[in-house]
């Protein structure tokens, strides 16, 4: 039963083959039975979900056709949900029950989605393995000794194990795409500014972007239709007319120009077996009429170092709001105001968050701004310019999502080796481009992700290419045996 896709369920709900209440109960039962193996949810909102399901059933009975009407979803615990704890994976926000909804939550509610709960994540979305969560690590449904990726690891693991048909994620340096690759699902980071950041707890504001995670490209397009759109409450929201992101799904690939960035294939760290999977996927796309050529992104090797200046700088500024005064964690018996601030923050944040706050504080401190932050912002532009030149000759770029297979819990103890897990994903965030990961193969029972990067606002085309690939292959339909 749980093999059905989000889009499949929407059709069955519309045809009244199943009620939203039955469907919601089916997934709530799966979460109760199977999630103890994964730890993919921080909070399950069963009662509210069933109430939302009943409301959806009433709307369905009247013949309404909202895009997500009656279908269960999960929200990454970075999106504020009114009346429901919004922890961001941190002790700092463990006591925080949001007084308002994020725009994304508001829009998905309006589209009729039923929220089953809030998914686990790396603390404040800082991590690539979901090991930094205050609520414990999430495990990969394909091998529970391995990580699901991060930071949207709870959403990825939950969708991969079919504990929910679709979930939201956020992607600052790869946090939708890398866990999607590790858990064998499809995930899309839209163009910067497509999806409102209002009520999405800020990490690095010039990079953060919310997006959908589900089994298929069609599901992601359907979810994005509900999530995206101009929001005057987000100062960087882009003002563009509403778009149907499923419009390009049936577009054939004849004449599509695919670029292979040389730098994403030549790196020493690329696992040969991953490379083999990507090569096979390229052949599938060629078979459907796509043309493939090599392109250069000569500054892409500077992406990770530029990111680890820009993102911590913005993080240190954004996380200054957590002061132990207005909401969130407060230390016991503070001696004075400074003690209240420093101990509330010292006890409320985990090590990786503290590390990034300190890197950011340092690079923004007097005398260092030009040497680090300004330089990184200049590098950011030459990285973006490389993409603009590449898109003069090709329609989409194709690369591995990650250089390696999902790694074992605890395998990457030093920060820099963890950061390099996002070596192929970070450049798209720096440039603000849409990019997605889709399942393209398996090695030793572990999924491998294929990354597609598009030009600005070209999500519909990306989803179309992915959908055409998914017509020819069944990697997206595979579910780990323990969760089938």
């Amino acid at each position: 039963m749980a093999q059905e896709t989000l889009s499949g369920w929407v059709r069955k709900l519309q045809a009244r083959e199943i009620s939203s209440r039955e469907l919601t109960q089916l997934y709530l039962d799966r979460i109760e039975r199977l999630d103890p193996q994964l730890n993919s949810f921080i909070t399950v909102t069963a009662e509210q979900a069933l109430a939302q399901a009943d409301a959806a059933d009433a709307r369905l009975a009247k013949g309404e056709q909202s895009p997500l009407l009656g279908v269960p979803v999960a929200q990454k615990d970075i999106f504020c949900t009114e009346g429901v704890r919004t922890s961001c994976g941190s002790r700092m926000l463990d006591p925080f029950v949001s007084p308002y909804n994020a725009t994304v939550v508001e829009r998905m509610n309006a589209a009729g989605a039923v929220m089953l709960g809030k998914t686990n994540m790396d603390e404040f979305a800082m991590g690539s393995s979901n090991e930094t969560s205050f609520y414990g690590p999430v495990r990969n449904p394909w091998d529970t000794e391995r990580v699901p990726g991060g930071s949207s690891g709870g959403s990825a693991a939950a969708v991969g194990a079919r504990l929910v048909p679709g979930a939201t994620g956020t992607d600052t340096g790869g946090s939708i795409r890398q866990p999607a690759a590790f858990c064998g699902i499809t995930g899309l980071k839209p163009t910067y500014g497509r999806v409102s950041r209002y009520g999405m707890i800020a990490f690095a504001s010039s990079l953060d972007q919310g997006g959908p995670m589900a089994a298929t490209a069609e599901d992601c397009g359907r979810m994005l239709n509900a999530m995206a759109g101009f929001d005057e409450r987000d100062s960087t929201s882009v003002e563009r007319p509403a778009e149907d992101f499923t419009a390009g799904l049936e577009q054939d690939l004849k004449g599509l120009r695919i670029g292979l960035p040389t730098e994403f294939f030549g790196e020493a760290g690329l696992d040969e077996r991953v490379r083999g999977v990507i090569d096979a996927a390229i052949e599938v796309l060629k078979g459907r009429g796509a043309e493939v050529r090599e392109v250069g992104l000569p500054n892409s090797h500077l992406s990770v170092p530029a990111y680890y200046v820009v993102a911590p700088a913005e993080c240190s500024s954004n996380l200054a709001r957590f002061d132990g005064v207005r909401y969130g964690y407060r230390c016991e018996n503070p001696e004075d105001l400074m003690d209240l601030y420093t101990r509330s923050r010292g006890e409320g944040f985990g090590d990786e968050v503290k590390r990034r706050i300190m890197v950011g504080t340092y690079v923004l401190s007097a005398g260092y701004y030009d040497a680090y932050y300004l330089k990184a912002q200049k590098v950011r532009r030459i990285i973006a310019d490389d993409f603009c030149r590449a898109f003069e000759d090709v329609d989409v770029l194709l690369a591995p999502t990650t250089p390696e297979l999902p790694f074992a819990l605890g395998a990457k103890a030093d920060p820099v080796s963890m950061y390099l897990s996002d070596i192929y994903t970070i450049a798209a965030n720096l440039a603000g481009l849409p990019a997605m990961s889709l399942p393209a193969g398996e090695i030793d029972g572990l999924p491998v992700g294929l990354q597609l990067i598009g030009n600005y606002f070209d999500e519909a085309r990306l989803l179309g290419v992915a959908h055409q690939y998914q017509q020819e292959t069944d990697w997206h339909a595979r579910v780990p045996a323990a969760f089938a």
Partner: protein
Amino acid sequence: MSVDTSEVRRIAHLSRLAMNDDQTRDFAGGLSDIFAFVEQLNGAAIEGVEPMAHPLDAEQRLRPDAVTEPDQREAYQAIAPAVEGGLYLVPRVIE
């Protein structure tokens, strides 16, 4: 660049993060590795390049100077760690 423990203490203070000596030592290693890693930026060809603050180089959108949000003082204070008489409580600042 290598970061020593006194530098970590200075940054931790600027960041308002309480830290004991063991933690200070642990962070010195990780921070040194990160700063050594980002030194790769020194080789970049960025002569005359404009810094990029926003992916779409958008400008700040302005709105009319009008009240748009209702008063939600009670809802917001209900989630504060300590309030009294509509005020947020903190340790005494002035003796």
